[in-house]
């Protein structure tokens, strides 16, 4: 209907022509051919759905891998999901995590304001590693609300070894060296 009645009528005429004019033997072959295609597609779908296709999609979403990810933020690089919290601690009014990307596979630090009284705080997330520049630190520019989080750039090289951060009533320039995980 979108293309108008003329095209619709033409399509119907074309389909009718094939149905009517196809020789009987050719028609039988066509029927079997379609049957075969259907079986093959069903088989292919069965095989495909038995594999972790979601993983392939997630991997494809990442725009970097390994060293290429150094210094990039995990969310913009497509590395944030799926990710694992390898270490977690609960300093006052906050959650401090070392996060690990499943596919990139990089590390970063995340600090979340979880204050039970609903107060906003400044926050900092610092990731330490063993080669220059030795750390990434991300302070929040202003107080962040409860359930807001700051996270550092991600790092693959230099064996990231510690995540540090907390929330506070005043600005935290960083780098933070306590509290940390592990």
């Amino acid at each position, binding site marked *: 209907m979108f293309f108008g009645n003329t095209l619709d009528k033409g399509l119907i005429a074309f389909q009718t022509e094939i149905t009517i004019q196809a020789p009987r033997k050719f028609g039988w072959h066509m029927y079997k051919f379609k049957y075969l295609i259907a079986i093959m597609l069903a*088989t292919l779908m069965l095989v495909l759905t038995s594999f972790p296709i979601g993983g392939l999609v997630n991997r494809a979403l990442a725009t970097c891998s390994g060293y290429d990810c150094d210094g990039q933020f995990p969310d913009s690089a497509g590395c*944030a999901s799926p990710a694992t*919290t390898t270490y977690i601690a609960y300093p006052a009014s906050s959650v401090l995590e070392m996060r690990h990307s499943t596919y990139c596979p990089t590390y970063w630090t995340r600090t979340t304001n979880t204050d039970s009284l609903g107060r906003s705080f400044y926050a900092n997330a610092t990731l330490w590693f063993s080669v220059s520049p030795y750390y990434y630190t991300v302070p929040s520019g202003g107080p962040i609300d409860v359930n807001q*989080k700051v996270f550092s750039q991600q790092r693959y090289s230099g064996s990231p070894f510690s995540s540090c951060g907390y929330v506070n009533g005043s600005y935290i320039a960083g780098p933070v060296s306590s509290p940390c995980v592990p």
Partner: protein
Amino acid sequence: MKKHLLVLSGATIILFAISFLALKIATQHLQPMTVFASSHLPVPESEDLSVAQRIAVPTNTPLPGIVYPLVQNVNDVKMELLGTALMGDYFTADICYNFPTNDPEWMIGGMSPEFVTLSNGLETISVYSMGMIGNIKTDSNGNYTGRCDHLKFPVSPSTNVNNMRISVSRIATTPSEVMDCKAAQKRLDEANQRIKINCTQDAGLGGFVVTSKPQGMDEHTANSIASDAFLDVVQGPWVFDLNGK
């Protein structure tokens, strides 16, 4: 006709075999890479706990003779307590558990320490830190099946460690840096929570805020409900009584 059928059947079988082999090879090469950076780092003996609550436990008090592992199976999630120890200012516990789904983001407790507690009948304290032991467990197909964690509870030197109890009230996925606000709002609406949220996303910053909530609901409750809308949760509890005789 029989000849045609034989050819068609043969072609289908060959296609199936080729597809299977190709995908098997592809998935083998797409297994998550093994990362050894932080997994082998030693757990420090102590951490800055100026703000953490402590319960009183006498230093060097021997733990009761418990036969490990202690196993709890709740809601199809098997959890094993492999062992406990008093290490300086901490009571530690090693716990393994299987994942309810093929998702590497599951962990015990999650974004709140109150879901993992240690009690001695008189006092209850929340976990202070957890660290993954080794790597996430996978099966032969690369599916994520479980993990083990080293838990640390801050203690102080004057308490009875007999009849201690470790409780894990739930396991949950961790929220991503990229918040799916639309899906979370849909969950809240479907549960008729009357909570509205708004997500923010910037370089190094993310999360959500509750923009409206029902009258009479306190902010902490609204935040907890909204936070859970971003997660998958399996409720326990898994309870381990450390009262070995």
